[in-house]
């Protein structure tokens, strides 16, 4: 072969960098974090002693936190050890060993940094709660008050659950109907398409709180036969169905349009009518695709049930506001917030499971 362009030096086996400095840095960060965490734990326990709060689980939790952060020292020490070995290997001229040990040392350093950062964040939150003479803690997390008022709030939270479950069922049906109306084919379908478009435009733009206000006060005021006798939560269900029906209709529409036209062609070529094709081929596939965005909208709906307090329905938020006013403390509202979060998290996990199972069942390589 000719000398020149093709005769290049092999550049890949680089001399490994010495990880010692990084390892000592990690050691320092680890030690500093451990010291800081014990200081904060001590401080928090002091504060608890001053205010005579004696909750065993909190005490144990604090100590446990201190112990767990102390474990941070281990990866940093390990990093220093291995860095020493890497250095020795480099001196001995064993490039491969130096590289392997160096990489291991660096990876232990990164462990230290990552966990230290997380621990510092937790510490900051702890300090924030006791800041300003524990005013943050007392304002948001008055534990005794939260415990005493939990029952009435949980009972009122049932109203939220009831509103959102009924509204969700209605939204599923109503949204699909609107989506299909928006997708009606041909010229004769045009007026219906237009009305459906107008509806989605209007109710996606209208704030949910205004929709609840107008429906909740308006329908009874207008004396509309059946609506005027409905209880407040049912009026809220109507308002939320109208609002979220518009959102979900758009989700459905996107899902239906995402199904490749060849599926429709195959179904129609077998003699299925337009509606049969929708029902048996297109919508079932679309629904599988839109479950994640649908869940998004449902979580939005669940949270918006807290808006029904504007028409005076006795939901968890309204209940907690009454308690809050009586005790001049926000902790009951925190309880409501926690309840909402606890309510939504399992749904997300459940849907993830569902999709995974579905995928395993229908797709190759499962």
């Amino acid at each position, binding site marked *: 072969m000719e000398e020149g362009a093709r005769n290049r030096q092999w550049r890949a086996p680089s001399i490994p960098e010495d990880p010692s400095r990084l390892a000592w840095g990690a050691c320092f960060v680890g030690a500093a974090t451990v010291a800081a965490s014990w200081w904060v734990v001590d401080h928090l326990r002091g504060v608890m002693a001053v205010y005579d709060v004696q909750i065993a689980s909190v005490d144990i939790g604090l100590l446990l936190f201190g112990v767990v952060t102390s474990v941070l020292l281990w990866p940093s020490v390990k990093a220093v050890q291995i860095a020493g070995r890497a250095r020795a290997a480099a001196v001995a001229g064993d490039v491969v060993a130096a590289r392997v040990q160096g990489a291991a040392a660096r990876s232990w350093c990164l462990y230290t940094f990552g966990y230290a950062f997380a621990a510092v964040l937790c510490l900051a939150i702890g300090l924030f709660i006791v800041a300003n003479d524990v005013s943050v803690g007392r304002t948001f997390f008055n534990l005794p008050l939260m415990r005493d008022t939990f029952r009435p709030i949980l009972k009122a939270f049932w109203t939220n659950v009831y509103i959102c479950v009924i509204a969700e069922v209605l939204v599923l049906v109503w949204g699909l109907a609107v989506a299909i109306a928006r997708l009606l084919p041909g010229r004769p379908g045009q007026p219906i398409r237009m009305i459906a478009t107008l509806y989605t435009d209007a109710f996606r733009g209208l704030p949910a709180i205004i929709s609840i206000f107008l429906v909740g006060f308006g329908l009874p005021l207008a004396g509309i036969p059946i609506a005027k006798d409905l209880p407040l939560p049912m009026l809220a269900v109507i308002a939320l169905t109208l609002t979220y029906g518009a959102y979900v209709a758009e989700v459905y529409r996107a899902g239906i349009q995402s199904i490749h036209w*060849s*599926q429709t*062609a*195959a*179904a*129609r*070529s*077998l*003699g*299925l*009518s337009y509606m*049969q094709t929708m029902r*048996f*081929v297109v919508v*079932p*596939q679309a629904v*599988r695709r839109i479950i994640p965005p649908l869940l998004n909208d449902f979580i939005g709906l669940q949270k918006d049930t807290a808006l029904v307090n504007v028409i005076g329905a006795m939901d968890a938020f309204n209940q907690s506001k009454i308690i809050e006013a009586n005790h001049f403390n926000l902790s009951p509202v925190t309880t409501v917030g926690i309840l909402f979060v606890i309510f939504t998290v399992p749904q997300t996990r459940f849907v993830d499971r569902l999709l995974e199972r579905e995928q395993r*069942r*229908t*797709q*190759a390589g*499962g």
Partner: protein
Amino acid sequence: MPLVEMIDVGKQFGAHTVLKGLNLNVDEHQVVCLIGPSGCGKSTLLRCINGLEAIQAGEIRLHGDRVTGPGVDLNRLRRDVGIVFQSFNLFPHMSVIENVTLAPIRVLRMDRREAEEKAMTLLKRIGLEQKAREYPDRLSGGQQQRVAITRALAMEPMVLLLDEITSALDPELVSEVLNIVRDLAKEGMTMLLATHEMGFAREVASKVCFLYGGIVHEEGPPEKIFGAPSEERTRAFLKRIIEAGRL
């Protein structure tokens, strides 16, 4: 009387003319192969016959009955005219047996048990009865295409349209699909197929039509078209096919 008659069929997509005054007859029990360069309208022609595309000029007759233009019940027409697509187009959310029985149950109002029994008989014939409960994504391309053919056959069509059904398959899977078509041809099924498998066309076709410029440029028995084509365009097309090692 021919089973399928196409009389001066014209089809445009916007400004683009695909078919311009095409005439073609398919007799009962005939296997007609459409060949020609890509984009010459083979697929479009098939899609027009079962009403997936509307034509703008001329007419198509089935058993002497005009099936194009306003007032034709396309859903009813499609019971008699089956089509199999290049990309299979099985329904991915349904098992094989559900794919095959959907139309018989929903369109022909067949009893579910009866439909499933019939589907199993058909699946047994193509050797896929064990896959009846599987989902399409778990089958090979060849198996999927065999299921797609079965799905069309479950409607007991009078004529079967096959739109380049082996073009999306790996070479070693082509024969398992062609064997089915071969069997159908022997049983006397009327078929109209667009294909690039020239060797196969030569073997099974009763008539080969070379489509060019939106019309049937040349037609005749396979021996004539492949052996001694009279038109210059046909010869040029076949020369390129031979150069590609496909004939």
